[in-house]
């Protein structure tokens, strides 16, 4: 009944034709279109104009000469990237972290949500939930600072305690390349797990209770109910979250990684996003950095469409 809700219709057109029709539509909804303009302007200026700027990945961009004056060099920067010494290291570091994310970060909220779901002391359930949501609202700078305060050798409490209790060498965890990945994963777990449980808890709240009744009648214990009722019920949610995650597979959280990177752990720390910033902004290699960013962006799009296609092939509802 959408048309009923529209503003009062104007008189029918006297002259048929495409153009006047369009003009009339514009005039009829002029206030709505007017409201739309500022937001649309935002998306054009800050999202679509930068897409035009991607062309500098195929140029030797000189800011002074601009987009039109700079020389076109084709795929030179991509060739440099793929054959250069950075690519292997960036790909390895990025994929390694992505892999650790899939193994540890992705299942964590599912497990916590299932555990919370089994908790029948309501006040305890709500207290734990309130606590584990908090880190989501703290900035990565705060999380990084907490990490430095807890882990660094100078004033880190954990480093100090571990040294006092276990003895041995005092380890400067935040400066060790080997400790970079564990620290990043711990940070991500701490900051994101609680928040993501909300989505799974919502899915769990929607499970039909008669299914549990039926399972119990059939003699299913708590484990079997979990396996045969609860998990299948939240499977669509898990699939959607997996698709969303796959698109972001190469998108390590820039702020997080950047904040934890220092000259000592750069070998394991550099990922595509921080590399783009480092090479582009700090060293001024705009074109090369843009080529790196474009490569990452295209792979991300392919991943999200690919996993969506896969999800549908496997009989699940995809995102689109």
């Amino acid at each position, binding site marked *: 009944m959408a048309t009923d*809700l529209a503003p009062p219709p104007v008189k029918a057109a006297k002259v048929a034709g495409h153009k006047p029709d369009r003009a009339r539509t514009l005039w009829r909804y002029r206030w*709505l279109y007017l409201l739309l303009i500022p937001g649309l302007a935002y998306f054009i200026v*800050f999202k679509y104009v930068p897409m035009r700027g*991607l062309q500098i990945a195929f140029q030797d961009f000189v800011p002074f000469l601009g987009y039109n004056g700079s020389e076109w060099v084709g795929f030179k920067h991509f060739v440099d990237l793929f054959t250069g010494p950075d690519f292997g290291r960036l790909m390895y570091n990025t994929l390694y972290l992505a892999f650790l994310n899939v193994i540890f970060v992705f299942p964590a909220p599912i497990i916590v949500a299932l555990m919370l779901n089994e908790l029948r002391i309501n006040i305890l359930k709500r207290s734990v939930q309130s606590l584990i949501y908090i880190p989501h609202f703290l900035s990565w700078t705060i999380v990084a600072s907490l990490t430095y*305060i807890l882990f660094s050798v100078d004033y880190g409490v954990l480093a100090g305690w571990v040294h006092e209790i276990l003895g041995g060498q005092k380890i400067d965890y935040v400066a060790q390349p080997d400790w970079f990945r564990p620290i990043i994963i711990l940070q991500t777990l701490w900051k994101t797990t609680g928040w993501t449980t909300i989505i799974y808890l919502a899915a769990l709240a929607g499970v039909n209770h008669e299914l549990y009744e039926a399972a119990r009648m059939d003699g299913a214990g708590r484990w079997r109910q979990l396996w045969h009722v609860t998990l299948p019920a939240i499977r669509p949610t898990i699939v959607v979250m997996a698709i969303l995650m796959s698109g972001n597979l190469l998108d390590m959280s820039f*702020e997080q990684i950047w904040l934890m990177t220092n000259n000592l752990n750069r070998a394991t720390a550099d990922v595509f996003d921080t590399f783009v910033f480092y090479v582009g902004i700090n060293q001024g290699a705009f074109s090369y950095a843009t080529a790196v960013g474009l490569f990452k962006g295209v792979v991300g799009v392919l991943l999200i469409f690919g996993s969506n296609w896969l999800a549908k092939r496997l009989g699940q509802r995809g995102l689109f």
Partner: protein
Amino acid sequence: MSVNQYRSVGSRIFDAINIAVLVGLGMITLLPLLYVLAGSFASESEISSRTFFLWPEKFVTSTYEYIFATDVFIRALLTTIGVTLVGTVIQVALTLTMAYPLAKRYLPGRTLVLNLVIFTVVFSGGIIPTYLVVRDLGMLNSYWALILPLAINPFYLIIVKSFFQELPEALEEAARIDGATEMGVFFKIVLPLSKPIIATFSLFYAVGIWNDYMSPLLYIDDSSKWTLQVLVRQLTGADAQNALSALETVFFPTQGLKFAVVVIATLPILCFYPFLQKHFVKGVLIGSVKE
């Protein structure tokens, strides 16, 4: 509902372990924050010897007194508050005005605009091209660079649009019959009905700007325009000593300072947290419902 299944030994052990693990998770979340809070009130000697844990033996406020007597800190705090307030108003205004027309199913061109918005979630120009646009607009070292490039969060936009679609349409229709203009309907009917969601997303946007570190890192070189997050980073990072050489005359990076500045940057978030919590579950849930 049958309770028998919970009486078996295995079931009880499961419950006990479950409770222990979940309480443990809650503690792990809370302890670092409490530790930093305690540390910010501890004396320098207690921090270096780490004799305090959740309560300092000697309770001192000298670190805070020192911080609040420092221009650099006050300026960063005021900058952050100002940018957060102005930015949130702009973000909420732009989100609401864009979401309203997009909620009108009969509006020609609506699908096109929605697709344009969603496409930016999947694909973007990336860091460098966006940086060049901001630079070409002359916004480097301007507070606008912290606000305008983030003016609309597409996810929030879609959620607000869904919310507007759920509003009872009869109300708007009645107002139109009474002679209200489209603008009148939006300002007098729709916005007053949307107070809860406006509150929710105001808080979300405010937290986003308050916490933003990437924008100042990209767009602000001038240390007199630093925000609180940049200052936190400069004071507590691994390279704090080097980064601070420029500021050495005003700041002596004592350990207590690191604790206190983290507390101050976190406190507003924690103060607003109860209000956030009231709304966010609903916000997330509306967002996760597919159209």
